């Protein structure tokens, strides 16, 4: 290709810092970060965005997102984001939370932020376990799934059933946009990126609460190679947690 015809097809997002991720090899947290950054770039939002990092493997998200950030206590990110958004209604505010953070210790905060129609965007990383603390059971752990605290596999009689957060929140009137996406292959990643962008657009329209549940891998604690973990994500995890758009009360905008 001659120099004159070179065309940049992919670059490093402005909304990411150059800090190398600390995530395990093959972990899809990094892909999710990139998708969020690309959405902020595409919509030109970096300079008016405040992100809220949660407690989990993504606790250092503030080192990676090149925008103003606050680090919240475990599960409290939606409350922190509410405080920010009420003070700065013209800013774009998002949380980035794991499934232990959002679906267990932080259930009250996420349910009420959604019910209030709080005009924030939530990126919810569901990897079906507590990654950071060593792979314990999460509310999202599948029946039969082995974790360090369900060594024989999750049993409903003892541990109850997995929570489908997206469906649960979709019963409320506050949310403007709720979708579930997966990161198991390139096509799915492209779709995930579209949904994340759409969630931010919902916030820009002041349509209400938006959340994208991102099915994600944890090869380290699943005890799988990165490739095997992606297969498991597609064949097993996404079988229980079906991808799709659950709520869309936004105006029609081109995705």
């Amino acid at each position, binding site marked *: 290709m001659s120099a004159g015809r070179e065309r940049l097809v992919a670059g490093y997002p402005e909304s990411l810092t150059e800090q190398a991720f600390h995530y395990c090899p093959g972990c899809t947290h990094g892909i999710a970060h990139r998708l969020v950054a690309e959405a902020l770039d595409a919509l030109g939002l*970096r*300079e*008016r*965005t*405040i992100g*809220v990092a949660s407690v989990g493997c993504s*606790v250092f998200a*503030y080192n990676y*997102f*090149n*925008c*103003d*950030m*606050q*680090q*919240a*206590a475990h599960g*409290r990110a939606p*409350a*922190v*984001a*509410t*405080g*920010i*958004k*009420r*003070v*700065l209604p013209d*800013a774009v505010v998002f949380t980035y939370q794991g499934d232990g953070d959002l679906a267990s210790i932080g259930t*009250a*905060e996420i*349910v*009420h932020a959604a019910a209030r129609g709080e005009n924030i965007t939530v990126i919810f990383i569901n990897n079906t376990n507590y990654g950071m603390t060593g792979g314990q059971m999460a509310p999202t752990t599948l029946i039969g799934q082995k974790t360090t605290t369900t060594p024989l596999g999750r049993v409903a009689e003892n541990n109850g059933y997995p929570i489908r957060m997206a469906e649960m929140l979709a019963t409320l009137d506050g949310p403007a946009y709720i979708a579930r996406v997966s990161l198991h292959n390139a096509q799915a990643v492209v779709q995930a990126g579209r949904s994340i962008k759409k969630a931010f657009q919902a916030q820009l329209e002041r349509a209400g609460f938006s959340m994208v549940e991102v099915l994600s891998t944890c090869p380290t604690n699943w005890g799988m190679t990165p490739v095997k973990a992606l297969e498991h994500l597609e064949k097993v995890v996404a079988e229980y947690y079906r991808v799709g758009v659950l709520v869309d009360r936004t105006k029609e905008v081109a995705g």
Partner: protein
Amino acid sequence: MERRLMKGNEAIGEAAIAAGCRYFFGYPITPQNELPEYMARRLPEVGGVYLQAESEVSAINMVYGAAGAGARVMTSSSSPGISLKQEGLSYIAGAELPCVVVNMVRGGPGLGGIQPAQSDYFQATKGGGHGDYHLLVLAPASVQELVNLVREAFDLADKYRNPVMILGDGVLGQMMEPVTIADPVPVASLPAKPWATTGAQDRPANLINSLYIDPLELSAHNAKLIAKYERMAREELRFERYCADDAEILLVAYGITARICRTVVDLGRQAGLKLGLFRPISLFPFPYAPLADLIAEVGVNKVICVEMSAGQLVEDVRLAVEGRVPTVLYGYPGGVVPLPAEILSRIKGEGGANGVRRS
């Protein structure tokens, strides 16, 4: 502003608004409900936001977010709710965010009761949540002082980038007294907060955070916090002496109990007893040296610590007295407000005991 009759809880609200506070995150609990209710009415009138959170846990985390976004922000509760706020307060102190928190203390432990108490003294002054930190704690004894301290609390919170607690009780929140509220500060004239997360436009990104994973960094962060508390101890001691200059028996009490003790001093003096009163107003930092100096200077031969709790304030009083004179506790926990006459008869040796209210 003109003088008017106001209930303590409502006066806090108006004083906060005058101090430039435009955001309040609350959750109902007796005996402080008039404050969130007042804010729900008044804040929208001045372009502010009142939000009822789903719990005290959420309310304090909303305060974290709002304070991090640069706003003057407040929350209030009473004892059980303040317990739930401890996690958030620890994060707020760690992240060095300014905010004002009101605790209208009620008796405990557990659900306790709804009558006035001072049993959250340890929780308020010694940290309360996890980690090495302190709130700056102010304890008013009248509605006017409450109003004045709320105004100061916002300035102190900004000065130190630290949460400030107003420690009151059910009496103070519920009683009505004439007050004058200082003229409102224009919000635009408040000090700039270049560290706040407001969007990284034409500047590097800002971060509000309490995580320092490297122990050396965390210890440096702790050293910075310690230096801040030491500066408070040098610059923010507040206290009042009443009839103390020739006192032989010195009462030490704060808040509403100190007000009761003023009457005890007056009654005692009429009966020929040389009573005096030392009233700490800042509970953290505690006025150790002013109390010790007073005892040395005046020739006090006995110190009586009167508190509506089972022996919390007395620990700080003993740290100040350092065993120089006998220090005894008159403790009234459980939501019982001691009467001046019963305190006086105890001083005269006519009976009475800790935890016992003679009706």
